């Protein structure tokens, strides 16, 4: 169905809903690369004016990716909760923005199952950065495994101790450094250098041994493909969480070597292990704007809308952790610090509106127009927006994946300036081990953790 808006004698026409959505998105290199970005600044605002007047219900019938050919579209439509939607069914995209800004967190949470990814993508396209922060900050999403993540006034950290050859001593050393700096309450998660199941099994044993030796109230994860995790579970490896990268179309997920049935199988297998002590949220998902275009599977849909659809996939599996790897995919999708900042706030807000425990990998590559100052700005705004967790990478420099993220020190900075604490169970552990003092600061007399055998020679 075509759409148009008249501005001072010029009629801006849009062929269909996905074209309106793409033109309404703030400028970013990936939509230009896909050939779907607005062709002028005025056309971009015209698209937002069209969008603002659309009733929310239209997103239930006019699908940006057809229902018949895409299982993600079918998931979104078939799982839509009409009862939850009833409270906002009368709204347009524009009045949804106003409603979100005026409502409290409980009211926003109550309609989550009635919001589709396309609705939250649309409304965030007409929101300023300030709106994205204000709305997300009201919406807490709390999840549990061995720690409680996402409580108000808390900021958790994924400790990311990657090593280019998966050397156990190198990884253990980075883990200890992170723990001594107060990181690791979201997860201790390794991106393995190789794709080998036996090597991943050894890493899981190392993580489990360290966690138990220090009695750390957290969870461990080796971020390997879901089919590898299924094999690891069969082998009896200590799998706390099941990780997978996911996208917003069936074809993108096929490129990742997955479909919804496989995710469901992995979810069930991980749940059956019953290793959580406080809760049974066992899935960890990563997403990122540009993944669908990169896989040639974007269907002419803009990358932010597809990112929200990837979050719609995540929502079906009750994840413990979800994060956008916002600047990782490269400058052909998000060119500079400004575009990465906008995408980070969008992904965090859309995820929270859908009810996801959103974290962010605030990051960039060396061919993007960005540096640590840009990351500082995003980090600070994400903290104000109530992000559940960020990455803790030694010195912000991932020596295996060759990109820059946030560091253990960055997490300490954010907790300091915003008065945030770690997850409560982890906070108590930091105090008991003497890593922090009663005020939550790193102790003046440093903690003495006994070194594990592989570092004590």
């Amino acid at each position: 169905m075509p759409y148009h808006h008249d501005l001072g004698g010029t009629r801006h026409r849009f062929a269909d809903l996905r074209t309106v959505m793409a033109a309404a998105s703030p400028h970013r290199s990936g939509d230009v690369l896909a050939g779907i970005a607005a062709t002028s600044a005025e056309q971009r605002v015209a698209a937002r004016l069209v969008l603002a007047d659309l009733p929310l219900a239209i997103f239930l019938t006019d699908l940006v990716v057809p229902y018949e050919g895409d299982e993600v579209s079918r998931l979104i439509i078939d799982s839509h909760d009409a009862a939850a939607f009833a409270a906002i069914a009368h709204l347009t995209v524009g009045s949804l923005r106003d409603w979100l800004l005026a409502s409290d967190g409980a009211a926003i949470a109550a309609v989550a199952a009635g919001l589709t990814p396309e609705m939250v993508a649309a409304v965030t396209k007409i929101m300023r950065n300030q709106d994205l922060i204000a709305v997300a900050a009201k919406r807490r999403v709390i999840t549990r495994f061995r720690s409680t993540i996402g409580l108000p006034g808390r900021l958790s950290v994924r400790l990311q101790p990657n090593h280019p050859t998966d050397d156990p001593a190198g990884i253990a050393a980075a883990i200890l450094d992170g723990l001594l700096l107060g990181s690791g309450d979201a997860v201790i998660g390794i991106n393995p250098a190789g794709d080998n199941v036996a090597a991943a099994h050894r890493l899981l044993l190392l993580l489990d041994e360290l966690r138990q030796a220090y009695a750390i109230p957290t969870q461990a994860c080796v971020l390997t493909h879901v089919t590898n995790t299924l094999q690891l579970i069969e082998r009896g490896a200590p799998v706390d969480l099941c990780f997978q990268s996911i996208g917003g179309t069936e074809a993108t997920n096929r490129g990742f070597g997955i479909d919804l049935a496989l995710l469901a199988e992995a979810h069930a297998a991980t749940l059956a292990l019953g290793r959580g002590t406080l809760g049974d949220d066992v899935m960890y998902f990563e997403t990122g704007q540009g993944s669908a275009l990169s896989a040639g599977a974007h269907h002419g849909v803009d990358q932010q809308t597809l990112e929200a659809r990837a979050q719609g996939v995540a929502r079906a599996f009750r994840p413990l952790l979800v994060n956008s790897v916002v600047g990782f995919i490269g400058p052909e999708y998000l060119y500079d610090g400004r575009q990465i900042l906008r995408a980070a706030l969008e992904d965090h807000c859309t995820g929270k509106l859908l009810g996801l425990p959103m974290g962010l990998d605030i990051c960039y590559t060396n061919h993007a127009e960005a540096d640590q100052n840009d990351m500082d700005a995003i980090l600070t705004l994400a903290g104000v927006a109530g992000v559940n967790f960020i990455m803790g990478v030694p010195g912000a420099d991932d020596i295996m994946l060759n990109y820059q993220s946030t560091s253990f020190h960055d997490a300490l900075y954010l907790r300091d300036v915003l008065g945030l604490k770690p997850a409560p169970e982890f906070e108590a552990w930091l105090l008991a081990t003497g890593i922090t003092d009663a005020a939550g600061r790193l102790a003046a007399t440093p903690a003495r953790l006994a070194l594990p055998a592989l570092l004590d020679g």
Partner: protein
Amino acid sequence: MADLAARLAAFTQARIGLPRAGHALGTAATLAFDLAHAQARDAVHAAFDTGPLEAAFGAIVVHSAAPDRATYLQRPDLGRQLPAADAARLTKTGADTAIVVGDGLSATAVARHAVPLVTALRPLLGGVLAPIVAAHQARVALGDAIGAALGVDLLVMLIGERPGLSASDSLGAYITWQPRPGRHDSERNCVSNIRPPHGLDHETAAHRIAWLVHQARARRLTGIALKDESSADPRLPQAGHTIAP
């Protein structure tokens, strides 16, 4: 803490055990990071000086369809296209093998390693070699269009890899059997991290590339099939996380 930190730091190249100022990194560690990032940025944005390649080998210089660095970084599709005017300067001479040197994401890598690597590589390749081509604003797949214009069966693309903080001058080599536009990255073999003295030296890299070239000619293919069988060969690099420029 200082003792423990130093002991931990000995186990990894990761930036651990660093002195703090309050909760922040100390000045020395902060500036060390800035320097590494500056070198990586300079490598990405350095201009490709083709003069040494022209002087040493009479290289033919071409440009991709990306007119400048900013466009190149945002439009990888343009970096893979060879404008007709540039293609017209490449002729079929009966050669069956070609070497292309592209700036990729690090002209610094090309400036340091291209001339000595090509010098070491040429005598090892066999076949009939086309003139060396130097390509500005090049992605790996630009070699497919160049190889098609030259009419060769085998193309070796030497190209600057995406700089990391620890290495801004790493050169990669991509070997493609029957290069034609539309080839997938899975149809190539790669030798990466050519970067003496920390990575592969030029002689070793030249021998690995030549080994792959001879295998490709014998089996009339490159890509996953070749890599799978060669993975047991300790002389060959294992699959890693290198992202092709």
